[in-house]
């Protein structure tokens, strides 16, 4: 299997110098074919001098940490990424580091697909305070509620698991030619915490 770098390199080459989109990000062509500048997709056509230049990885990471109202974004792939910034032209390794930082796990979930994991399997390995989520199976009401409030409402990833899941093929078909899809193969820890809260809330009612 080619490495993540080689897969992204091939995807950039296939874009033939056109912008490539990933969630709310755009990877804009830069000086050379394999260099890309990152921006918010809504700033694709904005004059560079109107945007704040993020000079390094810590600055890029920081922009994803809070939304425009300075509220913390524990889900980094949530809608609401700040606008008004751009990176320098990034070489492939720097581009990959920046993308890992802005949209954690997005590249490997796309380029190095892991098989979807049913929620009950994810729940089975939980321990401590999260063991409780083992009680809601693959279709339980707490899971449905958490998925509705978190995955559907607050995350741009598209689920390959759980209620209302789509297949990888369906997600790829629905992704425009100029975009990289954002598949989600397994429940993240944030969602697991939300499921636990739903179970807790139901018990208190």
């Amino acid at each position, binding site marked *: 299997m080619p490495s*993540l770098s080689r897969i992204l390199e091939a995807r950039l080459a296939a874009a033939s110098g056109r912008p490539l989109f990933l969630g709310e990000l755009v990877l804009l062509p830069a000086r050379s074919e394999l260099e890309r500048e990152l921006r918010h997709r809504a700033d694709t056509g904005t004059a560079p001098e109107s945007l704040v230049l993020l000079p390094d990885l810590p600055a890029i990471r920081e922009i994803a940490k809070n939304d425009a109202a300075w509220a913390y974004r524990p889900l980094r792939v949530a809608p609401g990424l700040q606008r008004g910034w751009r990176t320098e032209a990034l070489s492939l390794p720097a581009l990959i580091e920046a993308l*890992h930082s802005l949209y954690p796990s997005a590249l490997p979930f796309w380029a190095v697909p892991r098989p979807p994991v049913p929620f009950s399997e994810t729940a089975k390995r939980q321990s401590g305070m999260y063991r409780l989520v083992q009680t809601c199976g693959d279709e339980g009401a707490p899971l449905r509620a958490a998925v509705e409030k978190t995955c559907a409402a607050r995350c741009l990833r598209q689920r390959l698991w759980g209620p209302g899941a789509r297949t990888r093929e369906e997600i790829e078909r629905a992704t425009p030619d100029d975009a990289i899809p954002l598949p989600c193969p397994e429940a993240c820890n944030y969602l697991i*915490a939300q499921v636990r809260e739903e179970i807790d809330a139901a018990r208190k009612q």
Partner: protein
Amino acid sequence: MTPGSCFDLHAFRARHRHDALVVAGHGSTVNADSSTPAYRHADRIREQGLFAEVHECFWKEEPNFRFILDQVEAERIYIVPDFISSGYFTEEVIPRELNLTGPLTRRDGKTLCYCQPVGLHPAITGVLLERAAEVVHASGVPPLPPEETALLIVGHGTGLNENSTKIVREQAARIGAMEPRRYAAAVAAFMEQEPFVKDWRTLVSQPNVVTVPFFISDGLHSYEDIPVLLGMTEDVRRDGILNPHAIGGRRLWYAPALGTDPRLADVIVAQVAHFDTHALALAHP
């Protein structure tokens, strides 16, 4: 001793130039500052060019422990928990989420080297002492006479993980036994178990008290809970720490959480070197 000085950095860089480092921290879904130290340490190691790749992962933030190895391209991967002690996360959660079978796991052409948590490295004692000295220096006060000064090392303390209290006690004992003496007394105190930090006035008798929270990041405990228990009156989040404090006729200095010290990056690197010397040496005698 600085952590980075205990081995040859050039040789280290040459040895690890194709390897990856993964710094594994706790993170938070509500506190944006919780993961900051882990990121800063990773950035510092990145700047030094010691590894081909440096990654961060978290229990409560993305990227999650579970998925981090998917984004690592190197064949040999060192995982260092950015945790202050061993316990539930380092012994159960991280190995489970990363499918580790022990200190050394070989899988799918990869070698996964699971190092000790940062807080367990002997070099942490040096960082703690330098932290304590710097907080006094930064307040504009000349170095304190050891015979009139106590060091108070504050841990969380909980019945759930004895290791987290053990490591604080060990640090206090190690510093207390140093010759020449750096402090007249080096004492461990805890928020939620005896000896309680709120009792510091009776735990130590010296006129000068330097306090270092043995925590991996700043947050509710180091910004709010411990200052209140010590009798500090400023709002640390808003005003910063206003050292020295005059409390009950004594002077008290308070440091930021130990885990925020930039030298922790060197300790992370030192844990990799420690792994090479001990675990890898055992695997390839």
